[in-house]
């Protein structure tokens, strides 16, 4: 099966740390939100603590680790929020 190409949106401290508002990831077909988290921690071990405290949003809604990703999904990493 074709690998899954996902562009992940980054915000706030993560966006500044990566010096980019997106990061492109290549995941196995049928990968889940949890798989995406693990790949990010492997790529950026120095930000592990913050990454583990992030939520993941898929198509603008919070998504559980078990949720499968699909080509074309809009994916974002949501660090702990501080609006208000």
């Amino acid at each position, binding site marked *: 099966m074709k690998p899954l190409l996902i562009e992940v*949106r980054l*915000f*706030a*401290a993560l*966006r*500044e740390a990566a010096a980019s508002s997106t990061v492109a990831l290549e995941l196995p077909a049928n990968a889940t939100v949890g798989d995406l*988290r693990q790949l990010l921690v492997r790529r950026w071990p120095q930000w592990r603590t*913050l990454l*583990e*405290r*992030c*939520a*993941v*949003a898929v198509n*603008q*809604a*919070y*998504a*559980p*680790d078990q949720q499968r990703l699909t080509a074309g999904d809009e994916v*974002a990493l*949501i*660090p*702990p*929020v*501080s*609006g*208000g």
Partner: protein
Amino acid sequence: MISLTRQAIDYQALTEAVRDPQHGAVVLFLGTVRDRTGEQATARLEYEAYAAMAEREMRRVVEAAQQRWPQTRIALIHRLGTLEVGEVSVAVAVSAPHRAEAFAACRYVIDTLKATVPIWKKEIGPDGTGEWVHPADISMSDPFRPESAV
């Protein structure tokens, strides 16, 4: 009336938008930029949002409040960009037949917004250095779906 804005918040317009001749109570909450956080002096704040999702979550929060307090009218606006000390960052206006629901719904909306809506602030000190605020007491990955803080 639910929105993000880069302009100064007109809280009087927001309040007028929820007033209703069948309602006896209006409660307005304003979040304003403090000149310090703990020991740290603040010169200004920068607010960033995942805008499309933030507006969806803001609507979800308001809908959840209106399910719980069905007779309320609610308006919610959050500012983005650079804010000076004293400026209004967020405003919640609620009207209801009686004051108990108006207070409860207003408190619910601001508490839930602060826990779930993807907006972040960076505190800029007098020396120009800044730090993003990512509160340690909110773990957003577990449970995956942050719910009401009430």
